[in-house]
């Protein structure tokens, strides 16, 4: 569970930074404000998660933002608005699905934070879904779908292979209540249904595990 929690916190810190970079350049003023608000939420979730690590005996910097267990996708700025929304849907989506599996966690400090994080993530999901519908109806549709496929390569792998040792152990001890394959399928099915409602069929890439770094929970193409 230590690597999962560390990577959750590091990814939320990185996602907050990537969201913040769009707070002055989103396509609408409302979305620029939303990007800033979501960035603030993510940084708050990250900062609030590092003390959980400390409780697990990991020497974590409570101010966070220094960890390197983040998706390679978040190493650099999100290159365009399609990539932003793809991250909003899939990176935020995978991390939030994991947090949802911690609501009844035997790791009490994680359970105590999970409900608050889920409360705040509701608006992130609404933002991502609204923009997904909009992009599917516009001329950027194909480029958006391509970004979703690219983003899935990273976000979909965060949960690790089906027999991921860390998640399997966490499931056995009750630290999470849903296994990795089930979490991944929830996100995949939600995205496919979301796009299907707009008449867009998306086939997400099959995930293979060459290039998977279990210690940092990231995949490098």
């Amino acid at each position, binding site marked *: 569970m230590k690597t999962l929690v560390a990577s959750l916190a590091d990814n939320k810190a990185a996602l907050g930074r990537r969201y913040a970079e769009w707070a002055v350049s989103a396509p609408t003023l409302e979305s620029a404000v939303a990007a800033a608000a979501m960035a*603030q939420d993510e940084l*708050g*979730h990250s900062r609030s998660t590092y003390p959980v690590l400390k409780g697990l005996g990991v020497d974590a910097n409570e101010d966070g933002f220094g960890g390197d267990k983040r998706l390679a996708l978040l190493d650099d700025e999100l290159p365009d608005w399609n990539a932003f929304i793809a991250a909003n849907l899939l990176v935020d989506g995978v991390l939030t699905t994991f947090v949802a599996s911690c609501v009844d966690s035997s790791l009490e400090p994680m359970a105590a*934070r999970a*409900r608050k994080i889920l*409360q705040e993530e509701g608006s992130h999901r609404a933002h991502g879904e609204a923009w997904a519908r909009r992009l599917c109806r516009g001329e950027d549709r194909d480029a958006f779908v391509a970004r979703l496929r690219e983003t899935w390569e990273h976000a979909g792998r965060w949960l690790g292979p089906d027999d991921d040792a860390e998640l399997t152990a966490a499931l056995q001890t009750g630290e999470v209540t849903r296994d990795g394959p089930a979490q991944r399928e929830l996100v995949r099915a939600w995205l496919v249904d979301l796009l299907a409602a707009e008449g867009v069929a998306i086939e997400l890439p099959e995930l293979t595990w060459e290039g998977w770094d279990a210690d940092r929970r990231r995949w490098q193409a």
Partner: protein
Amino acid sequence: MTVEARLWEALTEVEDPEIPISVVHMGLIVAISYDAGVVDLKLTFTAMGCPAMDFIQDDIRERLLREPDVERVDIEVVWNPVWTRKMIREEARGRMRELGIVA
């Protein structure tokens, strides 16, 4: 009046820096206990990314240390229970409406 009751009363003088409503009326104070000069206070925030976290904790500590029986204030930030608008005290809602804030 118990010491704890007096501490709750004192904190009605500490306002949220973003809204002129006390931290008590905003429902941010989850619990206060007192023993031999030490206050243990559980505090929550409206949002995990609240930018005023440090200011609010400083203001709470500073106000409680002005009470005659208080030598130390230990603050623990908690996220359970999850803060919702329902935790805003009824007497604060009128003031918030006057300020144009939906409560």
